[in-house]
């Protein structure tokens, strides 16, 4: 069952000659054929193209090549460009768009030898926390197919949790990697803003978006980050920091590491099972020699309001490009403006419309200072909270989400309630930090619970070290959903 392997396990077997990339890739394709009808993780995939890449990887290995991901099948969120493949952002407005180039992360995966395959489901334009906003139907949580898998990178998490791929890439603007990873029982890593190039990532909120891995364990997250991180002249927000060997950080030794628990994170609505599971996880870290202290992030209660002003403002500008002229679907109109209106009215789903209108409003004349400029100032206060906290501690621990996965449809009529569920993940993006979610238990209903660790800008080595040390002492990450 090669599709159940991690990157490191598969790489060992490929190196030993016990398996070929064709075996592994075919195994993932068979798994998709068997289970994806129930899960809807994949919007599309091209088996012939995947197998051709696998054969090329096998030939390269036979010729003596060694690369970090040689022959490893990796699935791509439908917001990252892969040359010659569809790119829809799970929206109708892109019509039958076919990407004319590779994103930088796609190119880096190819250079590392990966089999880049599949377009995985998401909330339309990465706007949402449940993958219910996909124009192609919701993805389903493999731990309970009546539940949401989280979002926006829901398909990326489902594909990993259900062993339809070895690992995947997602994107995270306010928790869109960490939250679905938590709700599906995977590892999800949001790198520091500026760590990974966004060239070829369809922009949602440019000051917040970051691409990152969703994987079956922490070591795989470290391996994938090492491949996709680094400077790129095609993304001017990319920070020219050297890329360390992230797997070298996985020493298992966290003695003396200082971990902060924000007192403001004891929020109303925090599920008691989630609270207990994350407290036990923190106790485990303490047992291994970490020092746990209470910290304060006084502006926590303003994070969601700040985020939904800044993110929607940026989205309203970024999504202006979908106007029916240069690419995607078009609905005809008598004038260019009528054509734009009709195209955008028919092409965008409701959440995307809601956010574009909100973003346009907060930027519009007469409202800019009251909303957008004020939110940018509060963002400074939120960021300062974290920088102050990191004077005292190395990492911050919290639940990834206030509750386990909820039922499909439960919150879809109440967008504000949906937004409030992002409370623990959103500040990380506003402050430009890195963050990871690792499995730390299950609810009584058998739904996964995630522990979130947040690190300083470019503090991924500490983040991965602590997450890995925790994972070594537990077996949550080895559990697999058993669905019919």
């Amino acid at each position: 069952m090669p599709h159940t392997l991690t990157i490191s396990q598969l790489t060992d077997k490929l190196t030993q000659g016990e398996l070929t990339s064709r075996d592994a890739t075919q195994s993932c394709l068979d798994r998709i054929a068997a289970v994806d009808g129930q899960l809807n993780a994949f919007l599309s995939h091209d088996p012939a193209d995947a197998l051709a890449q696998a054969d090329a990887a096998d030939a390269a290995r036979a010729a003596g090549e060694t690369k970090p991901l040689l022959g490893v099948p990796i699935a791509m969120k439908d917001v990252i460009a892969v040359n010659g493949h569809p790119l829809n952002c799970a929206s109708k407005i892109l019509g039958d768009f076919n990407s004319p180039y590779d994103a930088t992360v796609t190119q880096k995966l190819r250079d590392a030898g990966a089999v880049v395959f599949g377009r995985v489901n998401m909330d339309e334009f990465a706007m949402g926390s449940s993958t219910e906003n996909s124009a192609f139907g919701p993805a389903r949580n493999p731990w309970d197919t009546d539940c949401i898998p989280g979002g926006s990178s829901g398909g990326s998490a489902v594909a990993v949790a259900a062993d339809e791929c070895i690992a995947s890439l997602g994107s995270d603007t306010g928790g869109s990697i960490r939250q679905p990873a938590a709700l599906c029982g995977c590892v999800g890593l949001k790198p520091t803003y500026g760590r990974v190039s966004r060239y070829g990532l369809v922009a949602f909120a440019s000051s917040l978006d970051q691409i990152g891995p969703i994987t079956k364990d922490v070591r795989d997250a470290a391996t994938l980050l090492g491949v996709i991180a680094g400077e790129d002249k095609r993304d001017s927000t990319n920070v020219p920091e050297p890329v360390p060997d992230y797997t070298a950080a996985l020493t298992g030794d966290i003695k003396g590491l200082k971990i902060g628990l924000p007192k403001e994170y004891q929020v109303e609505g925090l599920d008691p099972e989630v609270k207990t599971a994350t407290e036990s996880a923190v106790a485990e870290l303490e047992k291994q020699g970490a020092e746990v202290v209470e910290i304060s992030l006084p502006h926590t209660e303003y994070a969601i309001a700040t985020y939904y002003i800044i993110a929607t403002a940026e989205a309203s500008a970024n999504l202006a490009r979908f106007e029916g002229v240069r690419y995607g679907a078009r609905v005809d109109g008598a004038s260019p403006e009528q054509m734009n209106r009709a195209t955008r009215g028919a092409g965008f789903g409701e959440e995307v419309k809601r956010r574009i209108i909100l973003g346009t409003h907060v930027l519009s004349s007469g409202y800019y200072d009251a909303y957008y400029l004020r939110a940018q100032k509060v963002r400074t206060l939120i960021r300062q909270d974290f920088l102050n906290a990191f004077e005292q501690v190395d990492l911050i621990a919290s639940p990834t989400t206030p509750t386990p996965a909820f039922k499909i449809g439960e919150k879809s009529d109440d967008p504000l309630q949906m937004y409030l569920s992002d409370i623990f993940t959103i500040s990380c993006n506003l402050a430009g930090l890195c963050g990871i979610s690792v499995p730390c238990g299950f609810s009584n209903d058998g739904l996964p619970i995630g522990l979130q660790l947040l690190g300083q800008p470019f503090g991924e080595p500490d983040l991965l070290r602590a997450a890995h040390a925790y994972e070594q002492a537990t077996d949550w990450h080895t559990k697999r959903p058993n669905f019919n």
Partner: protein
Amino acid sequence: MPNMREDLQHAVKLARIELTAEEEARLGSQLGDILKYVDKLNELDVEGVEPTAHAVPLTNVLREDEPRESISHEAAMRNAPKTANGLFIVPKIVE
């Protein structure tokens, strides 16, 4: 009672999104709730606080202006809904 506040109707117009009457009513009420919620930022005194546009201290990132390969004209046009002679076609602008 109109379906949507006038200021939001103005934003809809600026955003160039056609809404059905039903969408106007639903989005209007939901956006009203969201705007009420974000008003909590007014509780804070932000006098003298510098705004943060993004979280990394990078400004004026420049590179050499060197000619290099790019995608072809044909590849750049291939996803357009309507083209002719290598140009995008739009509805008539000038009468």
